[in-house]
């Protein structure tokens, strides 16, 4: 336990920890990487129109990655500790694991400051203290909740949900001289309104940077409209339907798809993007519509880290690539599969370029225009969904997913919502869906009901699918 050196928070400055850990690891490593992740977070939960649990937390994790020349190549050892870490113990643990590891398949020379091409902002950010959040960020939310609880009770509505704000600052230092940092503000709000008898439920969610663009009362007003639609029940059987998927639902499907974009797994024949007989489907047309699925650190409103940090290696992400510059990457371009994720070593083996994981995702058709409401107005008969839930992979070879519709399925006739239907279980592949979409609207920031928790920054359009597979009815409401 050390007394605070950054003003009452009891932990030494992260920059000092980076330097001390690099120094501690230097004698026993040929190279090393140090990552300090600082998180400051506040949250409030509500249910049955009352606040329930809450929390304020401060987290620090320090990771040391030790690289050593061993017989046949270079090995890596990774150790991670929380709090006020003993850097000598941490460096020892990383060095020990490096010494006990075989040569790493993803070994590649660490980036030099000149090669990393990091933005000057990332270099300058290194010298600043970690970003902090505080409960006052949620003061507008708390006021909005107070008003909305008061309005919901006489209306016979029950409100539930969650609001959180987080500041994560990552500091990266390497024995090759990289010193980079990135501060990521992130917020999310979920609001569920249910009828008092529990037979009707609907949801709105928002991803945000600082809550200045989120109004609880505004979201609740939209939910009141949807609960009003629910007054007329129109039970629908299982089957294939014309479906309007809102941006949140599209976001959950596209985030699922993006996780499958591993180059190595595709080459090994293990994903929907594998080519029969070997190789990958890069270059193949997935849709006749010119979809663009991209990640871009400088996407307006969805800005995220412009360099890679990772504390463990996987099939397509490597600890050796820490500091790698991240640029706009088009995974799907003009409707064709364009890129898969590779670490540098894998890309070199496959004769392609490295593409790292980036913290946002945008699906767009250039020139497509129209809101969800516009799509509704152009619908003769179909189902309007609110969001999807419990999405799980059934068959990775086709990327068949199953899941549920949640929080409102509405029947559309002649351009208008005429009532609410039951929920369904669906079985669909997002890759196949892209090929069958007949209409796309304007892409907007959207929070995935399910995967927004792990992937906050998505921009998605509403889409029309003419033959969505509703496999069975769910009695849930």
């Amino acid at each position, binding site marked *: 336990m050390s007394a605070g050196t950054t003003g009452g928070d009891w932990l030494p400055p992260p920059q000092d920890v980076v330097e001390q850990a690099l120094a501690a690891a230097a004698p026993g490593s040929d190279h090393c990487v140090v990552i300090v992740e600082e998180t400051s977070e506040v949250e409030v939960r509500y249910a*049955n129109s009352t606040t329930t649990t809450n929390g304020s937390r401060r987290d620090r994790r320090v990771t040391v990655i030790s690289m050593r020349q061993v017989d046949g190549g270079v090995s890596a050892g*990774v150790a991670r500790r929380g709090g006020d870490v003993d850097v000598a113990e941490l460096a020892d643990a990383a060095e020990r694991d490096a010494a006990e590891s075989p040569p790493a*398949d993803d070994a590649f020379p660490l980036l030099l400051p000149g090669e990393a091409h990091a933005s000057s902002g990332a270099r300058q950010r290194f010298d600043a203290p970690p970003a902090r959040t505080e*409960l006052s960020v949620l003061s507008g939310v708390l006021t909005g909740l107070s008003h909305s609880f008061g309005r919901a009770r006489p209306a016979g509505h029950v409100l539930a949900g969650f609001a959180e704000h987080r500041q994560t600052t990552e500091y990266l230092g390497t024995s090759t001289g990289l010193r980079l940092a990135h501060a990521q503000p992130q917020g999310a709000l979920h*609001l569920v309104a249910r009828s008092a008898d529990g037979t009707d439920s609907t949801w709105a969610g928002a991803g945000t940077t600082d809550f200045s663009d989120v109004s609880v009362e505004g979201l609740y007003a939209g939910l009141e409209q949807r609960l009003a639609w629910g007054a007329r029940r129109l039970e629908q059987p299982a089957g294939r339907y014309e479906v309007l998927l809102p941006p949140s639902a599209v976001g959950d499907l596209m985030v699922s798809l993006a996780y499958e974009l591993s180059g190595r797994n595709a080459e090994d024949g*293990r994903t929907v993007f594998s080519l029969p007989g070997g190789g990958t489907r890069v270059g193949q047309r997935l849709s006749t519509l010119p979809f663009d699925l991209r990640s871009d650190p400088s996407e307006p409103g969805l800005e995220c880290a412009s360099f890679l940090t990772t504390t463990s290696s996987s099939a397509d992400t490597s600890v050796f690539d820490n500091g790698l510059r991240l640029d706009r990457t088009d995974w799907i371009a003009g409707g064709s599969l364009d890129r898969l994720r590779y670490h540098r070593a894998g890309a070199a083996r496959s004769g392609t370029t490295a593409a790292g994981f980036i913290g946002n995702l945008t699906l767009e058709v250039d020139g497509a225009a129209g809101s969800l409401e516009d799509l509704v107005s152009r619908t003769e008969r179909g189902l309007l969904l609110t969001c999807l839930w419990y999405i799980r992979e059934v068959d990775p070879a086709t990327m068949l997913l199953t899941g549920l519709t949640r929080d409102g399925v509405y029947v559309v006739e002649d351009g208008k919502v005429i009532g609410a239907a039951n*929920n369904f279980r669906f*079985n669909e592949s997002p890759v196949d869906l892209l090929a069958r979409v007949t209409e796309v609207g304007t892409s907007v920031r959207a929070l995935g009901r399910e995967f927004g928790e792990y992937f906050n920054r998505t921009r998605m359009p509403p889409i029309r699918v003419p033959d969505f*597979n509703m496999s069975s009815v769910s009695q849930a409401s």
Partner: protein
Amino acid sequence: MRYVAHSPGPLDATALGAARDAALSRARDLGCSDAELRVERLRSQQVRLRDARLEGAADDIELGMGVRVVVDGAMGFAASVATGGGAAAALVDEAVEMARTIARAGGDRVELADEPGHGAVAWSSAYVIDPVDVPLAEKVGLLSEWSDRLLASGSVDHVTADVLAVTEDKYYADLRGTEATQRRVRVHPTVEAFAVDPDGGFETMRTVAPPVGRGWEYLHGDGWDWDAELAAVPGLLADKVRAPSIVAGTYDLVVDPTNLWLTIHESIGHATELDRAMGYEAAYAGTSFATFDQLGSLRYGSEIMHVTGDRTTPHGLATVAIDDEGVPGQSFDLVRGGILVGYQLDRSIAAISGLGASNGCAFADSPLHVPIQRMANVSLQPSEGGGPTTDELIGGVDRGLYIVGDKSWSIDMQRYNFQFTGQRFFRIEGGRLAGQVRDVAYQATTTEFWGSMEAVGGRSTYLLGGAFNCGKGQPGQVAPVSHGCPSVLVRGVRVLNAREESGR
């Protein structure tokens, strides 16, 4: 195998005493009616191999401290990775501030069910070898040797092997005089084999060995026959590759415990959490069809259905001595004679429902997270007095499927409609197994499925399955939990063909 008594772990007693004294005295001074301090050290190690070569490894220690208070009828929680007396007192101040500020948004008064103090408790789960003490080279060596066995078979194109090991040390102290020091050890090894079809597509076969509350000895065969399972995987995969695709329809199912544990988890475990049933998870995990007004009357399943919740089963992943609200681990009925007779509770929901004391189901997955109601080990009891073997259950089926191992799972937000797949599916014809079929998914509504359960296997078929990754709450928390069950026979279940579902 003999389980040795372990000391309660590496948390420093002097530092804990200082944090306890500082936090609890500050909470008393500020007028808190309840206050709890948790200090936790969670060490987790993961090792992943791909085609017998190390892909990634991590050695992580999470250390931190969390304080929950109830003050003026409001609840607040604050946590930090800083530990020690000064930081503990500061966290109490912050938790009180959270409670008072958020209460102004309009909140019902928070009450916790009464719970007496239980004094000093020291407890450790049963294990022999602390997995985090096993050198990385030994872990890589073992998984590599296992992978090589599969790759040598000729029918396996790729293999992934991984193990996740956790040693959880937790200190708990509250205003009622309970002070608990507990250690829990758990491991989850998995090996998965891939066969790639050169004409497109692929099939997989994964080990069905469950995650368990045991040490590294589990990988040496204490509690599971790894040699036998690894020897069987290539042949099972080769048979699956050659197997015909299922004809969709209605089938009688004999469900192996390696598959059924997950169906229990989703359709009974979560549905009998009273916080869900009363709407406190409505925004996230969902609610429950098993509403509180149906306690004692809801027909959940057939009369042979007896389901218990417990936090006491040896090697159970949810087993503890004292939960994260100072309530002793215990065992209770959830479904008896096919009727809903109980719920899983924490102290808050026990008070709101008027059911009396909590039955010990509070858990926080991290020192930085507030405890919420989490799942006990929820288990389906085998038939008493011997009972049928799995072969005898299969013998009672004319046309059906025997389903082994879990894979894909999904259930709706009130726990009615579920769909599960599995690792492998054997046709049953005339009471005998008749080879594998592919592309099976079974779909049902919870009460119909359990209502169609005609027979439960005997103790000889019983297995404790489970998972490390049960998700609930906002912010999301991940809990380990076990589910014991026998093989069962369920009549007339809807079976889909997953390839047809994809429209191909």
